[in-house]
């Protein structure tokens, strides 16, 4: 378990290995896989998977308060343990992978963005003001507050590209972000446009970052 302020985060070791770690970030409402998915079995280094706050075996806090920036800090807590990692994010985890790639460009050695639940968020710009109702009595995990607030958060394209630009400027990597998604919400289309055509299959992306491990 990792400490993130008053939350305990579950960091699952899915595979041992030598070299740089691969860190898996799950989608909205999901949890880390119980065993290593076969698509990552050729990664030589260790493979870890993080349960975000309110998900899987991590703490379900009282009264909500979720933001994607908080989840970025969850991922940063994992980087505090792993030192450096290549990150693969699904859905919501893909957006968080982008944020942490821009927030900690020296430690994130490539972020692979994949399809999954919660990829789009709640839109790209100003929306009708609302205070979404949460069924606080719903069984958790996943935390019902997370399910509502991380499906309605705004993800402006210029905000996402600022992180992509930081990753490109400060990581020293030619390809800091690789996009493997079919779904292209506005924030992700803007990132692809900002960085050029860094699109590849998962296998190609893993092989690319493995060579630089």
């Amino acid at each position, binding site marked *: 378990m990792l400490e993130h302020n008053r939350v305990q985060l579950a960091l699952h070791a899915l595979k041992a290995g030598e070299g740089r770690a691969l860190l898996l970030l799950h989608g909205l409402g999901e949890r880390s896989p119980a065993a290593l998915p076969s698509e990552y079995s050729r990664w030589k280094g260790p493979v870890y998977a993080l349960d975000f706050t309110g998900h899987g075996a991590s703490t379900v806090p009282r009264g909500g308060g979720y933001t994607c920036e908080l989840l970025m800090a969850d991922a940063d807590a994992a980087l505090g343990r792993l030192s450096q990692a290549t990150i693969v994010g699904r859905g919501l985890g893909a957006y968080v992978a982008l944020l942490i790639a821009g927030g900690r460009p020296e430690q994130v050695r490539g972020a692979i963005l994949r399809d999954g639940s919660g990829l789009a968020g709640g839109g790209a710009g100003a929306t009708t003001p609302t*205070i979404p109702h949460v069924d606080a009595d719903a069984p958790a995990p996943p935390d019902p*507050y997370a399910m509502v607030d991380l499906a309605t958060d705004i993800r402006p394209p210029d905000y996402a590209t600022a992180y992509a630009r930081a990753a490109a400027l400060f990581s020293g990597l030619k390809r800091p972000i690789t996009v493997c998604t079919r779904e292209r919400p506005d924030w992700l289309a803007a990132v692809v446009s900002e960085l050029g055509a860094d699109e590849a299959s998962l296998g190609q992306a893993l092989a690319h970052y493995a060579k630089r491990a």
Partner: protein
Amino acid sequence: MGAEGSSTDQASFPGARAPDRRREVDAGGVRLSVYEWGDEAAPPVMLVHGGFDFARTYDAFAPRIADAGFRVVSWDHRGHGDSEHAQLYSWVADERDMLAVVDSTTRQPCAAIGHSKGGSMLAHAIQAMPYRFTRFVAIDGLPFRGRAPDVAERERTVMMREEIARWLDHRRESGGLVRKPGTLEELARRRARMNPRLSHEWLCYLAAIGARRDEDGYRWKIDPALRMGGFGPHRARWAADRLPGFPIPILAIFGTESEPMGWDVDPEDLKPYLPASAQLEVFQDTGHFIHVERPERTAERVLEFLA
């Protein structure tokens, strides 16, 4: 976890009055401290404090509204004052907490007054639920940002990255942070750095009601995990663009003097965004804490608007 520990109730300041009642509200499992001034049967007015403040910073202002025939209800936001230190904080969490307090007070539409972040939260909540509110007073509580500073894109990226790194560093250590202890005088002097226009006597009063006494001295009750400033996807401009269609009458009060905790909003910039019916009041030689610097005059203007 929480902000237990007693502050001194003997504190006094000319014109300030402790709340008449105090109660607690459970907001999704987070305990909030709620304060009331005035007759419980009178029409309610919600009073929303700003970031890094607490409800009793209204001790000089709230009684003046209550004495005119209102039930004034305020509360300490999560992590502030005597409310519980939460595990997470967010804008929408603060808004849900606000609704929990409003629901615990009345199910009928009511008037609301907000200072600084409290005004901005109210503006959003009122647009989300116009049927819950009747009149809105913003005390330097409407943000407005013009064009971003004219710096090169690379420089902007460097600044943003540094800001995010500082925040992530703060998150890594926030679990172990404790506030610095001191005497009430020392706490008041520290607060003066953020509130340079407020008198030492007032800040000593605030320290006496906003600090808890530990074995090694007094500490501000606010959660050390909270941090000023920040970044995120929201743009103040989105809120400004919605103001022309604001659903209920607005009174917006501004000062003229820039302060560390203020938003540096020039009312002239905001004016074109306010509905024609909005009332705009600018107090000369006044900073961000308008209701603390000029409680009498602010109350008079607010009561005129609420009448």
